[in-house]
């Protein structure tokens, strides 16, 4: 009698299991609480641009963005969208934070009108409102002067004689110890990367370079420059440039640039922008060797 009960009862259990398997996935209560959209606004403190305005070409303006999550889902994206006379540029910044407060230095470009738009999203994709600024070009704007460096040579990290870091605006190659004494002047440097296979690389102190290459621990000012490979600007135009029109024509928005110009080869042309808004371009003449090698390049830089 006892055995029969044992037999019947387990038959029910497998049956219930099959029902569980066949049932649709149950809905669980949302763990993230009630949703509301993230909030975003321009910083309105003194010194920050927060309304439409007119700027001369090459003028810079500081803008601030403040955003917060609408729930306990962190913000993960700040999206920037720039329209310049019908041309569009957009770039994304990843993050993982409940609130955001950043400043950006923007430079008025060649375009007559440009619209800077921003929104944030949280990690479930909930999107804030979009906030925008319209910048129009002031009449009478002129192209600016440039500095030209016809032959610069930087040594890789193990090069015994050539300087590894470039001091600007002097254009002098300095050794790493020398550079640490003029940190505010170091915007470009060169090394050969065999950790990430980036090979011949030009970057800046703020590019998170592995400490086994250059150890920036202890530097109080790590300037950052950003780079974009430029296939449309030819070497002839580069060499004939007499003002910053070519630089501005091939410029990019700082945030959308890469922190490193990697796998460099002779003939490569890069546009770059320094964190302080100064823009420039360089063209590689020659790369040589590996960790004890060197790079030679020509450079044009906005004179400010």
């Amino acid at each position, binding site marked *: 009698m006892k*055995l029969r009960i*044992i*037999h019947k009862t*387990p*038959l029910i*259990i*497998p*049956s219930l*299991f*099959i029902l*569980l*398997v*066949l049932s649709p*996935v149950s809905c669980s209560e949302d763990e993230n609480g009630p949703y509301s959209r993230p909030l975003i606004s321009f910083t309105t403190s003194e010194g920050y641009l927060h309304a439409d305005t007119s700027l001369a070409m090459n003028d810079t303006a500081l803008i601030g963005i403040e955003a917060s999550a609408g729930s306990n889902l*962190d913000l*993960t*994206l700040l*999206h920037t969208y720039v329209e310049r006379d019908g041309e569009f540029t*957009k*770039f*994304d*910044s*990843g*993050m*993982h934070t409940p609130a955001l407060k950043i400043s950006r230095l923007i430079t008025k470009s060649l375009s007559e009108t440009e619209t800077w738009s921003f929104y944030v*999203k949280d*990690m479930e*994709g909930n999107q804030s409102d979009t906030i925008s600024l319209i910048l129009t070009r002031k009449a009478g704007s002129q192209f600016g002067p440039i500095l030209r460096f016809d032959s610069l040579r930087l040594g890789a990290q193990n090069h015994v004689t050539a300087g590894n870091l470039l001091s600007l605006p002097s254009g002098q190659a300095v050794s790493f110890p020398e550079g640490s004494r003029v940190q505010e002047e170091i915007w470009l440097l060169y090394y050969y990367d065999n*950790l*990430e296979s*980036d090979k011949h690389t030009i970057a800046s102190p703020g*590019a*998170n370079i*592995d400490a086994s290459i250059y150890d920036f621990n202890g530097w109080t000012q790590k300037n950052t420059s950003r780079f974009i490979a430029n296939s449309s600007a030819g070497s002839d135009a580069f060499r004939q440039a007499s003002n910053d029109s070519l630089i501005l024509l091939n410029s990019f928005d700082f945030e959308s640039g*890469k*922190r*490193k*110009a*990697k*796998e460099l080869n002779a003939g490569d042309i890069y546009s770059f922008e320094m964190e302080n808004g100064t823009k420039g371009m360089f063209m590689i003449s020659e790369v040589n060797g590996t960790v004890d090698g060197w790079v030679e390049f020509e450079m044009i830089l906005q004179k400010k």
Partner: protein
Amino acid sequence: MRGRGIIPVMIAVCLPMQGQVSDSSEYAMHLDIQQVVISATRTPNTYIGSPGQMEVIRRTGLETIPLVNLDDALITLSNVNVNRSWGIFSKNASVTMRGLPGSARTLILIDGVPRNKIAGGSINWHNIHPDIIDRIEVIKGPSSALYGNNAMGGVINIITRKPEESFAGSAEVFGGSYGTLGGNAMLSGHTMKDGDRGFYWSLNGNYRQGEGYIFEPLEYLDDTDVGTYLREYGGGTKIGYQFGKGHNLEMAAGYYDELRGGGTKVFEEDGTYDAFLTRDIRLNYSAPAGQNLILARFNYMNEDYQNQKESLNSSQEYSLSHAGTVKNDIGILFSITSPLSKKHLLTSGMEARAGNVTGQELYRTATDEIYYSGSLGFVGLYIQDEYTLPVEGFKLIAGIRADLASFRNGQQEVVNPSGKTGFPESFQETFTSSSWSAISPKLSLQYSISPQKTAYILTGAGFNPPNIDDLVKSGKIRKGFRLANPALQPEKILNFEAGFKGRIFGDLFMSAALYHSPGRDFHYLVATGDTVDTGGSTLRPVYRRENITRVSVTGLELSIVYSLCRQLSMQSGYSYNHSVITGYAGSESLEGNYLAEVPPHLLYAGVTWQNRLFTLMVDCNYTDSQYADDENKVLLEDHFLVNMKLQTTLLDHLNLYLTCQNIFDVEFIDRKNQLSPGRYIMTGLRYNF
């Protein structure tokens, strides 16, 4: 001196226990040549009477092998390559056969029901628990004449246990390296008296967790590298009613929930992970009808896969994305086996399968959203005749299967792309439906040299359908950017083989085969010549998967089982495959290259020592060096691993065991340049009642 010492040791091992073990073949892990198997012909045949090469892992073998996942048992077979480079922390295992890479080219069945997902051909080995298995039948070589899709390298049919006791059960707890902890439980029973008519049932559950290990080599380690943790639980049940001998209705269902860390953590609590939720149900009905045997099957499987990926690049830029797919597979099979005369046994049937996938990729630190979906359906008709020729000892098996497949509902939508994914602009694309067919013949002639020896020659065919991902999904891949190709056709392979199997002398059994398998229309990524910016420092090449490659696999396999005495048995297997690309219509020069992820030499040897006090199995396997890429530029080193399992029974019901994989802590890296876990130890206690 050393040679002379072996014999006394053997005598010492064997003699004291004489008479305590009833049958030497019981402890040979895999071989009982008179064992009835069903997978080679879909009809009951003895191992020795089945056409071609096959191996069987029996229940006793599964209990003896030093395994921690079911697929670990398959390395004991010749010409089966199991790739599980992170051990139990691997997202999945790849099981391939006969010199062909890619899990989709081996068909996996559970009780005859296909387990390879139609959407990609892969299977999840974690959701098949060893406790539920009675035996594993492995058919070597292309077998699409009976089984259709995926059966290019061979077929692995996992046959589940049927309750033997009116009420029985087991409970197990275990712990091991890298913080592994877990447990299993199983209950089963039946109401059949004299094994004739009545209900039977079983219920099983399992749980496992582990902290994992860091797979990143030391020189690349950074703050975001963490252990590849795992948390998984699952369960299954089977209910059946036996109306009489050979007349059976059975339903089985499974549920499995898995979370596995991907080795990176930045902000999210779980870091990078893969999560699977799998549910499946199978119905089997078999009935005698006069002299005929009718078989009907239905299966449904649903897999919900979620992936979270987060990372910081060398410039400290944070990236977070979520991807997910839902895959549904459904299938039916109807088969009838009829003895037309004393010499002809005819098996014919119809199989229909359909599968779909709906997927999305949402980039949380960029604006990109990608959605895609598609479905594939197959209908196959097959017929096979097992003909006992008038000439004594000869048997001819001829079969053919025709499959018709249809690809439908393919679409992809890309919303707000940034440089992250490489798409220039938003778009929505609906792909044209397409269809294709495959005819797969098989012809085998075997000769019984004696009741315990068989020689054979055979030819067969296999095919592998395109992956739905390749049909509908464009996007970034590891080597560049892949374009969808909705016109992709199946790969096909032929096989010409000669072999032998049987008892050589005493308790020495051997099987051997030589084969040549030319394949055509193999899928390869072909560079289109275009490049695209996917957010990296350089432009990435654009590829599309095309049916452009001819391959050739020529090889041999050898398996030896030897019972030295009733307590000591050994099993060994060796295979060699020369797998090369013989024709390639793409722009790159791949002709003559070796197929990626195919180690030419595979070697296995294991010894089992069973006595009154304990059972000890020590085995080793050698995996030859292999190329990680089609271009044959990255060569992965070979490795030789030694494993063991020691177990003893206490108080009749308790089983205490210790398993050690990779005893000598050999370190090797996989094709993604990630480290293996090294030595892995697990110990457990099992209570059987």
